[in-house]
């Protein structure tokens, strides 16, 4: 690793806030040519914000920004691109209906003097580039027909070979299989040796330690550590990420929490060897009445797919769902609902009707139990009113359009839909995401109350705090497979992160 004396990219005292909330506070960061720089931190620690500043996505910030020793300000992603900075974002941004070659050359297809695309040349060059990356696909095949991991590799390849001197990769490995990760690392190392500066963000700390030369740790918008990868360990990094001492107002779950004895209630749900393409592999578990089962894992670990399968929105490739002793293959979400399964997805928009009044939102899932043919609006309003009071939804006006409620209150309405006639199994995805402490506590209390009423509850989250604050038993999902179960034993954020 030969480091140039001066960094190709240097940031000094960067501060950035969104609507009064500081996402970054006085961060210094330097990247050298021929270096792979790993970035770790919890969700919302500021990693992605910093990278978006570097890539010109957020032009407004305070602090000094130097490229090759020259103070610069990017006004757009285009400026950053012109300065040789390229970024692979967490979300896939490919054109699935175009060919592989077109995707590789997106925006700068080779043309002849008449402006006509030279397909043959494009296909040949795309094929050569991808082959260097160890990808052997027909450059003229439709990108969308390839597996997701391969699509992600092709997107990464496009950015890596765009000639950029600085490349930022945000969670590039979440959808990749182990051999694909290996190929990516080989390429990254080669580019590094050719003098490219690479920033690598990942939740997978092993990956960071394996590929990067330097690691920087973020916590609460601050840089809290920077060290050579060879000189640190996973445990030390996790400790730095989470932080010791009362920095956070909320319960930080850094200390061990002991999980109770497993519930001996009847098994409500049995999942047997569930598999779905690249998302889930042989997932088996049980959920019992009167317990909250937490399922923790990083973004893209298969949680979302699992929750959709439980609610009949996705069909698994293989495996069985047994609800209350009967094997089920849900033809629709309606079938899942009738079998006593309820889902609150992570996105409020996905399950609420913003242009309809609160009471219609509350009653929609139970209309068939309230009315046979004719609607009973008075009864609907009465039920909604009861729920609004129980859950302390503000403002307590059931005729108000849902869109006029704040986010936290909308989340409560999403829960309220299922509470009048409680299901047997309630699946909650990210039930407290984006909520303030008060609303979080409300949700925790609601869930505990439901548990006491004998429901089986599954909480899926990418935030360790959410799972730790709610669950009696915790499963860890990693790249589509269950890798660890915590039951009747001490658990903490460290232990969860360690397992994931």
């Amino acid at each position, binding site marked *: 690793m030969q480091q140039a004396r001066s960094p190709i990219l240097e940031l000094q005292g960067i501060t950035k806030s969104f609507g009064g909330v500081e996402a970054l506070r006085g961060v210094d960061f330097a990247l050298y040519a021929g270096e792979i720089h790993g970035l770790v931190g919890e969700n919302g620690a500021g990693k992605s914000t910093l990278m978006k500043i570097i890539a010109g996505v957020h032009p407004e910030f305070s602090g000094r920004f130097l490229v090759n020793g020259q103070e610069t300000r990017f006004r757009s992603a285009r400026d950053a691109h012109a300065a040789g900075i390229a970024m692979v974002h967490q979300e896939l941004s490919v054109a699935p209906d175009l060919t592989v070659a077109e995707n590789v050359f997106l925006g700068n297809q080779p043309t002849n003097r008449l402006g006509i695309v030279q397909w043959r040349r494009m296909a040949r060059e795309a094929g050569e580039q991808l082959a260097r990356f160890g990808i052997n696909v027909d450059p003229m095949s439709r990108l969308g027909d390839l597996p997701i991991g391969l699509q992600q590799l092709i997107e990464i390849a496009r950015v890596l070979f765009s000639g950029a001197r600085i490349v930022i990769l945000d969670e590039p490995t979440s959808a990749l299989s182990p051999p694909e990760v290996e190929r990516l690392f080989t390429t990254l190392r080669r580019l590094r040796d050719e003098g490219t500066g690479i920033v690598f963000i990942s939740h997978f700390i092993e990956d960071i330690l394996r590929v990067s030369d330097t690691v920087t740790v973020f916590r609460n918008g601050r840089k809290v550590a920077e060290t050579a990868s060879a000189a640190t360990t996973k445990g030390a990094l996790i400790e730095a990420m989470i932080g010791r001492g009362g920095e956070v107002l909320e319960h930080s779950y850094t200390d061990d929490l002991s999980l109770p004895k497993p519930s001996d209630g009847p098994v409500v749900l049995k999942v047997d060897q569930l598999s779905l393409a690249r998302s889930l592999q042989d997932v088996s578990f049980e959920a019992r009445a009167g317990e909250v089962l937490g399922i923790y894992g990083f973004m893209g670990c298969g949680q979302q797919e699992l929750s959709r399968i439980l609610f009949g929105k996705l069909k698994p490739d293989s495996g069985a769902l047994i609800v209350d002793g009967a094997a089920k293959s849900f033809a629709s979400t309606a079938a899942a609902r009738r079998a006593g399964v309820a889902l609150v997805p992570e996105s409020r928009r996905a399950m609420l009707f913003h242009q309809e009044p609160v009471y219609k939102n509350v009653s929609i899932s139970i209309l068939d139990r309230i009315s046979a043919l004719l609607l009973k609006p008075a009864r609907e309003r009465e039920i909604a009113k009861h729920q609004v009071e129980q859950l302390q939804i503000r403002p307590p006006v059931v005729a108000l359009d849902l*869109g006029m409620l704040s*986010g936290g209150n909308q989340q409560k309405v999403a829960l309220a839909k299922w509470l009048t006639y409680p299901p047997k199994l309630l699946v909650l995805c990210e039930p407290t995401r*984006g909520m303030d402490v008060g609303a979080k506590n409300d949700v925790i209390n609601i869930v505990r109350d439901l548990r006491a009423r004998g429901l089986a509850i599954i909480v899926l989250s990418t935030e360790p705090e959410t799972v730790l604050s709610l669950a009696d038993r915790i499963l860890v999902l990693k790249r589509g497979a269950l890798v660890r179960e915590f039951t009747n034993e001490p658990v903490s954020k460290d232990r969860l992160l360690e397992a994931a």
Partner: protein
Amino acid sequence: MASSETALAADRKARGIGPFLRSQMRNIAPFLTLIFLSLFFAFASPSFATLDNLGNILTQVSVTGIIAVGLTFVILCAEIDLSIASIANVTGIAVAYFTLQESYVNIANVPLPGAVAILLSILLCALLGLVNALGLTVIGIPSFIMTLAMMQIAAGISALLVRGQIAYKVPSLISTLGSGSIGGIPWIVIVAAIMLLAGHLVLTYTRFGRYVYMVGGNREAAEYSGLNVKLILGTVMVISAVCSGIGGMLGVAHFGSAQQNEFDTYLLDSIAAVVVGGTSLFGGRGGIGNTIVGLFVLGVLNNGLDHVNIDSFLKILIRGLILLAALVINVYAQRLREKTAD
């Protein structure tokens, strides 16, 4: 974050009459259009604003009205049915095909008792609607394409049944409802009124009607609420086909003949009536009330243009422009609504 969200909510709660009117624009604009057009023609022509002419207008919009009932359900679900006119046509032809024709009609038809003929014809349109429904929900063909294919299929069946000939006889019940009248009121107007009323009652007061609005308002949320979205979508496609079929049978009796391509103009007219009335093309907003206003806007426009001295070739252009204006309002109203309620 949370505090700014609450502030925003409070701000919206306090919104006044202006934003309220804006959110109601899709209902107000078509109504104003109707009043404006009526006043304009009333001043422009002495023969327009008469009771006789009102009867004419009502009769003229009846067939469109019957077809538009089902189409309203479809558009409320954010789908489209382009096969309505063809299905109306084939059902009208079928009911004639199953009726004994005069000897000079050169069609190899199958005469059956009137009730059976009507039943078979309704089964035919329901079946075609079911094919639409299965294509849309089970196979997953977008309704625009699926019903485009059905438009051809129904036209093809029509062609095979009449083979370029014209049939005249329909069962007596159909003939009465299509061209008879009671107490001076044409039966076809009464049938249209009853069907519109029934459609309104179903949409407003039944569980199924609520589901239609919810599926149209946010299909994903409907699915996550445990509604059987495919079943609901399939049902509205069948409803649409059956309404079209009834419109087709009565239309044939009303026109006095059953032949190929007889209903071609009804596709555009029905879609125009629903959309001009203010039912959202994006689903979830509007209803039969809007469709009725839309029917009258089109009816007054078509009828009124006949009463004023205007180049008959220009009429087509004017209708097109009015439809364009309605579409602009439709899209604009949606955007305003999203802005106020988002």
